[in-house]
């Protein structure tokens, strides 16, 4: 399989993730769609790494995983805090930043 194919799959996954972020209203699912986009980036990085035969792309992918883990921890923390304060878990109703 040539690297092209992997990049196309990566572009498709990224597109799906982006569409999900724009369409869905539940912040949990929006976080999941963000994961999709990050993973599409990972797939492209690994594909390029394979193309050059160089390990740098894998390091980048691992760093992206770390950042995704941080994002999940903070995002889920915010959602749990929202739930505790009985705010609606729905991004359309959370349009005021104060409070």
């Amino acid at each position, binding site marked *: 399989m040539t690297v092209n194919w992997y990049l196309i799959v990566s572009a498709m996954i990224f597109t799906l993730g982006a569409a999900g972020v724009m369409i869905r209203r539940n912040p949990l699912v929006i976080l999941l769609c963000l994961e999709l986009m990050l993973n599409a980036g990972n797939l492209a990085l690994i594909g390029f790494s394979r193309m050059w035969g160089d390990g740098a792309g894998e390091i980048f992918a691992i760093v992206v995983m770390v950042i995704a883990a941080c994002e999940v921890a903070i995002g889920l923390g915010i959602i749990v805090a929202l*739930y505790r304060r009985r705010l609606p*878990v729905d991004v359309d109703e959370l349009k005021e930043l104060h409070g």
Partner: protein
Amino acid sequence: MTFLFFFIFAGFALAGAAGVVVLRNPFYCVLSLVVHLISLALLFLLLEAQFVAVAQIVVYAGAVMVLYVFVVAYVGGGDKPDQLWSAGPRQKALAIGFASLIFIELAIAILGTALSALGTEGAKLSATYGTPAEIGELLLTDYLLAFELASMLLLIAAIGAVALAGRRGGIAEDEGNLSPRHGVVHTPSPAATGSMAEGVSGYGVTTPLPDPQFEGRELQQPARETAEDDR
């Protein structure tokens, strides 16, 4: 053979991704993402990145997804039935339009590139490519700074998560009401989305559903002692 495996794994990865976007129940979204992550790890294996593939399964499909499942079980809030698209047809059309624009642009970039190496199977690999030995050496030599910064970032994220979700910091005044054991369950989340509260109290299964408003605020507060034994 690689050809066949590639299409199988890519198909599962795309199906999982589509499932995350389309499915209504967040539990199923998480499970769909697990399928997606595992097939992505298999794609990484096809690209000979063994260490990253294993890390993907252990860290992502294992640890991170368990965290997600816990939070979905705790919060439960699915998109309310029939509200998946209720952002309005205009926003839906806009979102799909933007997404297709992104895809078209990426496809142009990939197919129209002058990088001729993209059309090959990749460079000849050294014997250590993708092994933990190579990754470890790179992390501790060329990318030491990134490695240290990543560890610092993880520490800060852990502290931030505790500060955000911890019981002492962001606790609401009337949080005692939230526990289903005290019988006052009026969570803002819609019913029948498989949350733990529903499982414990049978809420939404046999009883008629209250309006998904926030009536909990107006309800009578239970005595403070009942809230205390929850700690």
